[in-house]
C-alpha cells in the first residue's frame, strides 16, 4: 500500500496564557491509501489539534513550530496559503463533530455543496446540480432532487451529518479527516453513519483519519490504531493486535475502565487523576503519575519507541529490551485494584419505592396571538414503571424519546398531564407545594452536564448547604442553637465530601476550579446531602471521559451498596446499563416498548427496536454470530407520532396490523414484557400497567 499522508515530528503550540500549551508534541504517523487510521484518546490530548494542524486551520493562538506533513511527498507546511486552499476540500477534507454547527443555517444544502464544487472544479450550473444530487444520493439522502434545496434546519441530526459527509466527498478527497463524527449522534444513527463511511471508503479507495474517544467505534472502523496521550502518540498498532493485547499501560487501563457485564460485581479499574497540563516540559513519561506499573526511571527518562511485534509499537519503558523479560510476567497481573467487597445486599422484595403508572406529559403547542393550543408534543405517553428500594432501573432510549422528561416529572419539576407517581405509597402528583416540600428530601436528581449543574457563583459549601437548609435536614435543629447547628452542618459537609472521594477542604472553592469528574462528584454530594432514598441519574456520565466515567460509576455503585439507594438511571449507553442496572426499560417515542430483568432484555431482546438498539452499539469483541439490524430513518416527531405502533415505519418486521393499533403488553416471563404484535399478547390486555 502506498503511503498517502506522512506526519513527522509535528509540534503545535497554543499561545494561551503565560506559557504556551504544547497541544501536539512531536507526533509521527503514516496513513496509507484506502486505510482507516484511528486516533484514540481522552479529551484534551491533542487529537483535534492534530487534525487542524494537518488542514492548517489552527485557531489564531495556534502555531506549528516543527515537523513535516507530507501528502504524496508534498510538504503541506511549506505551501503558500493559496496552494493550501486547493488542497483543502480537494485532497483532504474534514467532517466535524457537531453537524448542527458545521452547516450554515441560511444557505441551502445544495448551495453549500456547490461552494466546494465551484472552488475545485470548473463545472457548468447544470452539471454541478447533477453532481450535488449524485453526492446526496450517494450518502443515502432520500428524495435528493427535492431535499437538496432545503435548509439545514429541515434536516434531522443524522441527515445533517450525511450532508456534511456529502460535502466532504464533493472534492473527491484522498484523505477524509473525521473528528468525532458520530459523538453527537444516537447509537442507531451512529451505526448508519459509520456504515455509510465504510461503504464510501470501499467505493472510493479513500483514506480516513478517524478521531474518536470511543473504543467501540475504533474496533468497528479502524485498520490501524494510534493512542494519543498528553500531546504524543504512546502506542501504534494494527487493530487486532491492539484489541487483543494492548501494550501501553494507558491503553490497558482504558480497557479495564470500560464498564461491561462481566465486571458487574466488581468495581471498575479507574485511572487516577487527570491528563497533565500540557504547558509544562516533561522530563519523564507523561503517564507516570497515573500509571499503575510505573518504574523508577519512568519519572526521569522519556520513553522511546519499542516494538512489541512487527507493526505494533509502544512508547513505554516496560518494553525496552532489558525489561522485556520481567514484562511478560507482569502482564498477567491484573491492575492493582482495591477490591472492596461489593457483595450485593439483596433486599427481600417489598412494595416498590417508586411506582409510576400511566404517566402522560404533553406539552401544548400554542399558536397565534391568543396562544390557542394547536397541538401537543406527547413527550411521555402512558409510561408505567416501578423501582424497589435499593435497586437500579435503567431507562434506555435515543435522545428525544422522553427519558429526561420522565425523570423531571417524577421530581415534580414538570407537572404531568395525567397519571400517577407514587413514592412510598404517597401520591406526588397534585400534591401541594408545601406538602411536597416535606418529602422532597427522599428523592433527588443528578444531571448530565456537570458544567451547568453547579452555580458558578457559589462556593461548594454553599452549594451543599442549600439543599440542607431548604429541606431542614438537621437532626439537632430542635436544640435551637444556631451556632451548634452550623458547626454540625460543616461536619456533615466534610463527611459528604469524603464520601464522594473529595478532601474536605475543597468546600471553600468555586466550581470552576474542578474538572468534570470532580464536579460530578460534587453534584452527587449535593444530592446525598438530604439523605435521599431514590436518586434519579440523568445521563450522569455521558459528558465524561471513559476513565472518569469509571470513577463515577464506582462511586454510584458503592453508594448503592452502603446506603441502599435506589437509582433510576437514565442513559443511552448500553455498556453502563449492563454494568449497573438490575432492571431495564427501553423507551421509544414516549412509550416503554420492552422491560424486564437486565439479563432477559439484553440477553434475548424481543422487541425489534431493542434488537436494533443493541446491535447498533459498537462492540469491541468481534462477535461472529452478531447480526446487524440496520434501522431506516430517524426518530419521528413526537408531535405527530405514527399511527398504530410508533415503531412500524422503521421496523424490519412491520405487519399490516402494526399500522392500525398500538400493541398491548405481551408477557414473556414474570418480569419480562414487551409491546409488540410479534408475540402473543396477554389475554387480559388490562394488565398494561403491570411490569
Amino acid at each position: 500500500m502506498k503511503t498517502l499522508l506522512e506526519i513527522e515530528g509535528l509540534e503545535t503550540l497554543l499561545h494561551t496564557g503565560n506559557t504556551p500549551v504544547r497541544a501536539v508534541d512531536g507526533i509521527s504517523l503514516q496513513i496509507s491509501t484506502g486505510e482507516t487510521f484511528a486516533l484514540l484518546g481522552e479529551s484534551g490530548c491533542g487529537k483535534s489539534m492534530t487534525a487542524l494542524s494537518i488542514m492548517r486551520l489552527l485557531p489564531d493562538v495556534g502555531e506549528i513550530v516543527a515537523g513535516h506533513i507530507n501528502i504524496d511527498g508534498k510538504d503541506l507546511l511549506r505551501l503558500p496559503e493559496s496552494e493550501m486552499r486547493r488542497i483543502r476540500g480537494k485532497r483532504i477534507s474534514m467532517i466535524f463533530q457537531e453537524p448542527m454547527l458545521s452547516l450554515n443555517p441560511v444557505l441551502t444544502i445544495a448551495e453549500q455543496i456547490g461552494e466546494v464544487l465551484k472552488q475545485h472544479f470548473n463545472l457548468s450550473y447544470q452539471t454541478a446540480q447533477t453532481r450535488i444530487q449524485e453526492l446526496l444520493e450517494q450518502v443515502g439522502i432520500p428524495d435528493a432532487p427535492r431535499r437538496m434545496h432545503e435548509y439545514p434546519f429541515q434536516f434531522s441530526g443524522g441527515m445533517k451529518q450525511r450532508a456534511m459527509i456529502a460535502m466532504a466527498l464533493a472534492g473527491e478527497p484522498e484523505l477524509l479527516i473525521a473528528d468525532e463524527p458520530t459523538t453527537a449522534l444516537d447509537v442507531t444513527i451512529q451505526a448508519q453513519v459509520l456504515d455509510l463511511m465504510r461503504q464510501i471508503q470501499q467505493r472510493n479507495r479513500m483514506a480516513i483519519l478517524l478521531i474518536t474517544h470511543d473504543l467501540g467505534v475504533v474496533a468497528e472502523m479502524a485498520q490501524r490504531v494510534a493512542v494519543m496521550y498528553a500531546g504524543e502518540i504512546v502506542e501504534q498498532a494494527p487493530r487486532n493486535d491492539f484489541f487483543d493485547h494492548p501494550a501501553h499501560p494507558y491503553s490497558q487501563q482504558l480497557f479495564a475502565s470500560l464498564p461491561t457485564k462481566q465486571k458487574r460485581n466488581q468495581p471498575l479499574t479507574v485511572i487516577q487523576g487527570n491528563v497533565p497540563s500540557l504547558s509544562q516540559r516533561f522530563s519523564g513519561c507523561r503517564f507516570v503519575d497515573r500509571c499503575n506499573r510505573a518504574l523508577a526511571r519512568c519519572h526521569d527518562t522519556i520513553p522511546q519507541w519499542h516494538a512489541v511485534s512487527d507493526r505494533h509499537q509502544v512508547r513505554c519503558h516496560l518494553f525496552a529490551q532489558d525489561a522485556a523479560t520481567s514484562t511478560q510476567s507482569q502482564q498477567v497481573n491484573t491492575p492493582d485494584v482495591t477490591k472492596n467487597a461489593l457483595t450485593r445486599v439483596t433486599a427481600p422484595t417489598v412494595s416498590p419505592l417508586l411506582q409510576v403508572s400511566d404517566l402522560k406529559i404533553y406539552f401544548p403547542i400554542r399558536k397565534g396571538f391568543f396562544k390557542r393550543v394547536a397541538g401537543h408534543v406527547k413527550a411521555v405517553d402512558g409510561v408505567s414503571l416501578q423501582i424497589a428500594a435499593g435497586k437500579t432501573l435503567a431507562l434506555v432510549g435515543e435522545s428525544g424519546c422522553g427519558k429526561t422528561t420522565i425523570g423531571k416529572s417524577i421530581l415534580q419539576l414538570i407537572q404531568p398531564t395525567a397519571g400517577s407517581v407514587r413514592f412510598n405509597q404517597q401520591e406526588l402528583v397534585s400534591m401541594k407545594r408545601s406538602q411536597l416540600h416535606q418529602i422532597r428530601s427522599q428523592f433527588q436528581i443528578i444531571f448530565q452536564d456537570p458544567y451547568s449543574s453547579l452555580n458558578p457563583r457559589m462556593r461548594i459549601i454553599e452549594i451543599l448547604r442549600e439543599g440542607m437548609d431548604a429541606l431542614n435536614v438537621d437532626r439537632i435543629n430542635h436544640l435551637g442553637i444556631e451556632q451548634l447547628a452550623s458547626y454540625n452542618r460543616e461536619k456533615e459537609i466534610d463527611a459528604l465530601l469524603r464520601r464522594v472521594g473529595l478532601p474536605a477542604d475543597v468546600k471553600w472553592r468555586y466550581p470552576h476550579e474542578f474538572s468534570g469528574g470532580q464536579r460530578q462528584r460534587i453534584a452527587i454530594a449535593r444530592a446525598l446531602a438530604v439523605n435521599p432514598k431514590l436518586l434519579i441519574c440523568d445521563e450522569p456520565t455521558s459528558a465524561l471521559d471513559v476513565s472518569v466515567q469509571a470513577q463515577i460509576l464506582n462511586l454510584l455503585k458503592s453508594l448503592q451498596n452502603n446506603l441502599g439507594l435506589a437509582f433510576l438511571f437514565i442513559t443511552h449507553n448500553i455498556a453502563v446499563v449492563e454494568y449497573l442496572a438490575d432492571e431495564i426499560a427501553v423507551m421509544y417515542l414516549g412509550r416503554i416498548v420492552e422491560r424486564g430483568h437486565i439479563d432477559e432484555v439484553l440477553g434475548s431482546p424481543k422487541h425489534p427496536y431493542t434488537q436494533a438498539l443493541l446491535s447498533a452499539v459498537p462492540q469491541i469483541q468481534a462477535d461472529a454470530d452478531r447480526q446487524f439490524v440496520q434501522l431506516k430513518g430517524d426518530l419521528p416527531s413526537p408531535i405527530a407520532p405514527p399511527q398504530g405502533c410508533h415503531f412500524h415505519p422503521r421496523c424490519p418486521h412491520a405487519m399490516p396490523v402494526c399500522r392500525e393499533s398500538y400493541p398491548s403488553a405481551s408477557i414473556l416471563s414474570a418480569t419480562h414484557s414487551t409491546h409488540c404484535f410479534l408475540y402473543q399478547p396477554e389475554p387480559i390486555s388490562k394488565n398494561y400497567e403491570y411490569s
Partner: protein
Amino acid sequence: MIFVVLRLSIFFLLINSIMPFSPIILWTDALIYLLVVLVAGFIAYVRRHEHLSMPWKRVAHSASGMSALTILLFFLIIGLLDTVHFRPALDHTTDQGKKVYSVEVLSVLDILVTPLRIQMEKTYSAPLATHLYAKDTVELPNGEQARVFTRLEYGGAHLENPEADRIHDIAWRTAKGLAYGIGCWGLLTACLIFILSRRNRQGFIQSCAAIWHRTMEVPWHAILITLLIILLLIGCAMSLATHYHVLGTDKVGQDILYQSLKSIRVALVIGTLTTLIMLPFALLLGITAGYFKGWIDDVIQYTYTTLNSIPSVLLIAAAVLMLQVYIETHPELFETIASRADLRLLFLCIILGITSWTGLCRLLRGEALKLRELEYIQAAHAFGVSHWRIISRHILPNVMHLVLIATVMDFSGLVLAEAVLSYVGVGVDPSMISFGTMINAARMEMAREPIVWWALLAAFGFMFTLVLSANLFADAVQHALDPRTRTLKQRSGLSQHPAKSEKLANITSATLTPPESASRS
C-alpha cells in the same frame, strides 16, 4: 443609619450656632450622599471577598481604563465638591438677633473658585482677552462719545499696557502654572511610589524602575502620564484664571470656565441617579418576567412594549411641564431658587429613569429565561428552595455582570440626553447651569458675526472628555467582568471534549486555575 443622621443633624446644629453659614441638603445632595455610601459599602464588601475582587483587579490592568478612571476621578471630585451646599450668613441680623442667611445657595466649589464666580464682565469676551468682544459706547474725557472695545473689568485689568504686555504676561503665568503642575505631579508621584515600594517591600529606585519599564501589573505609567496632563492643565488654569477669563465669558459676562465646572455635577447627577431609579424596575420586572414566565411575563412584556412605543421626549416634556405648573402654583414650598431648580432636576432624573428601564429589563428577561432552565436551578427546585431564594441566590448574582455593564454604558447616554432635553427646553431649570443650557445659550451666538465659539467649545470639550472617559472605563470593566472574553482566550482551540460536554459547557466555567491544581480525588 438613623443614628448617623441624628449625629449629623446635631453636628449641623452646632455648626449653625457658630459658623457663618447654614448647611443645606438638597434632595439630589441627599441621594448623592446615599450613593456614595452605597458605593463605599460595595467596595468594602468586594475587597473582603477574594472571588469578587479578582475581576475588579483585572480592570486595574487596563491602561486605557485606568487613564479614564483618573480623569473620571477629577470629575467626581469636582462634582462632590459642588454637592456640599450651604447658605452663607449675611452681615446683618434680624431684630431678634438671629442671623440672616443669603437666599443664594453656594457650594464648596463655589467658594474655591470664588474669583471665577464673582468676576462678572458686561458681556461677551474672548478667552484670555483684555477687551470686550463687542464695541461699547463710552464717553471720552473730552465729552465726546465713541464706540470702542472697552477694557474688561477683571480680565487683564492689572496690565498697564495690554497690547504690549498681554502675550508676555500670559506666557509668564502659563509657565508658572506649568511649573506648579509639574511640582504637584512630582510630589504626588513621589508619594505614590513611596506607598508602592512600602507595599511591595522593595526599594524606591526599584519601584521607579518597575514603573518605567512597565513591569507592574497596574499600568502606573499610563496613570501618571494622565495625571501629569491633568495637573498641567489645572496649574495653567489656576494661575491664569485669577487675572483672565480662561475660556471667555458669555452673554451676561459670566465666566465660561465657571459654568463648565458647575455643569459637571448636573451631568453626574443625571447619569447616576437616573440609573439608581431605573435599576429596581429593570431588575425586579426583568427577572420576574423571565423566571416566572406565563401571565406575569405577558403583563411585564406588554407594559414595557407599550412604554417603549411612546416617544420618550414626549413623555418627558409632558411630565416636566406638569411639574413646572406645580412649582409655579406653590411658590411657598421653596425657600430658594436652588431648591426649586433641584426639584426639577430630581424630577427629570425620575422621569428619565422611568422611561429608560425597558432596555435593561428586556436584557435581563432574556438572561433569566436562559438561566431558569439551567440545571443548577432545576436542582434547587428539586430541593424545594423558595422562588425568592432562587432569584436572589442563583439568578441575581449571575446577571450582575450584565447589570453593571449596562449601567455604566447608560451613563454616557444619559449625560447626552440631558443636553438634548435642555436644548429642546424640557431639561433642567434655566437657572441651573448645565451642559444643556450652555449649549442652548451658545446656539444663538453661532449665527452672529464675528462668531462666539468659546461657549460651545468649552461645553463640548468638557462633555466629550467626561463621556469618553466614562465609555473607556466601561469598556475596561466590561472586558474584565465578561467571563466570555477570558474563556475565549483560554479555551480557543482546546475544543476536543467528547460527547456533549463542550456544547453545554457553561460560559462562566472558565478555568482560572488548571484542574490539576484542584485536589486529586
